[in-house]
């Protein structure tokens, strides 16, 4: 048996980590806006946000490939101004994954924001605090489980994605060949042994991540239930 190469796992986790951080920064204000707005275009925005859930990854991957390639205005812009190629590169994977995993960050956060007791937000304003202070000291600490769910699901979903990364990233070892794609490659090469090992590792890690989420949620629920 050849030496096992863990680069695809490292790539997968590096990608998931980067995407989760970026989406968290974008997602908090975006989900906050969605939870507050009474605008008529809210359903349109919500539908667009949820699109990656229902769209076949190949369709999304195809459009992203077209949009991000250097022959499109967006791809060209990044290439000319930042010297960044957005297809068949790690940066491209990050951009594509951010779009693909967007709803998995937004929806739990939006739910969290919508379920916060409106009175404690007003109580914070009445305590003389502005929106930013209220967001970080009152709102986010009181929706820890939504926040945690959003982070973990986004992370796990990015680790687990396949179709989009294959189309936008190709499968360049050490650059864009993430774990899920590597497994596909092994199966194609009929190297079932490695496919087995890689798949088992993915399975165990995924289980542990989810178990951690449910375990923490369970503990939190017990802590916050009213005694009286």
């Amino acid at each position: 048996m050849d030496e096992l190469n863990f680069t695809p796992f490292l790539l997968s986790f590096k990608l998931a980590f980067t995407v989760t951080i970026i989406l968290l920064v974008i997602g908090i204000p975006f989900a906050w806006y969605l939870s507050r707005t009474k605008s008529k275009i809210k359903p349109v925005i919500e539908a667009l946000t949820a699109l990656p859930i229902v769209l076949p990854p190949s369709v999304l991957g195809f459009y992203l490939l077209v949009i991000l390639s250097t022959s499109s205005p967006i791809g060209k812009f990044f290439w000319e101004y930042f010297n960044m190629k957005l297809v068949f590169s790690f940066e491209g994977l990050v951009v594509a994954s951010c779009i693909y995993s967007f709803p998995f960050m937004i929806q739990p956060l939006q739910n969290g924001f919508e379920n916060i007791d409106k009175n404690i937000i007003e109580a914070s304003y009445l305590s003389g605090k502005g929106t930013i202070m209220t967001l970080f000291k009152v709102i986010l600490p009181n929706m820890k489980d939504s926040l945690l769910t959003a982070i973990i699901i986004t992370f796990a979903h990015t680790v687990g994605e396949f179709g989009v990364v294959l189309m936008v990233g190709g499968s360049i070892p050490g650059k864009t060949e993430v774990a899920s794609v590597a497994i596909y490659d092994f199966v194609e090469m009929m190297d079932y042994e490695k496919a087995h090992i890689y798949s088992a590792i993915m399975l165990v890690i995924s289980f542990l991540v989810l178990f951690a989420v449910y375990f923490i949620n369970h503990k939190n629920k017990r802590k916050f239930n009213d005694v009286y």
Partner: protein
Amino acid sequence: MMYINVRKTLHGSEGGINLECEFELKHKEFLAISGPSGSGKTTLLRIIAGLEKAEGIIKVDNEIWLENKKFLPPQKRSIGFVFQDYALFPNMNVLENLLFVNKDQKLAKRLLEMTDIFQLKNRYPNMLSGGQKQRVAICRALMRKPKILLLDEPFSALDPDMREKLQDDIALLHKEFGLTTIMISHSPSEIYKLSDKMIQLNKGKIEKIGTPSQVLLKTDTSEKFSLEGTIIDIIRADILNVAIVSIGNRIVEIVISRNENKNLKIGDKIIISTKAFHPNIRKKELK
């Protein structure tokens, strides 16, 4: 001095009503607002707090809180607000709830000691009873050292003993901190005990304004005293008819004549009054 003259259209369950209120409040006055649900009490309080916008004028001392385009947000108004359901921050303990408003440790300690809950300072809100939560909420509202304290039915979810204790706390704090207080309340005894001015709202308009005794005592001049109650049962006992009447949160039995019995039925609102009598009054023995 506080001057309020506000207008707002409300969309309630029974169609829209126009809230239109104008009144003045002197420094250190205690105003109670009462009225049926949907009369606009809470909205009026929220407008004063800056939680809702309205047309008109709100002026406190020489500061304009509301006028034409000018709207001072709640953060800039010198107010303390106590919600009906406490609205404590679940992620902070009692002391942290207070210090979130203002880092003044001394004031926090003083308030918690005045309301007898200093020993609970490290508890989280989910470990407190309703009365304790409401006391924390009142202390938190005063951490801003506000000129004006607004209370939205602060005692409605509490049992009678706890109500009395909290009414005493409010009376003490109102005096001690030289507050101008506005409280929404349904309880005549509470209003009578605490306030020196009251407003009766109905469908968004001020129906009555005056001292609590002017507004609340609805006796005709010839009646020495009268109580309002509801008949919950009428029992025939031998030749007598006995009406079981609920007054406040007490149940009493009253003998009624045959004539009276003809006119009264279960569920009727009644007034029990008397002209010539000598009531027995004795001090209640404390258990």
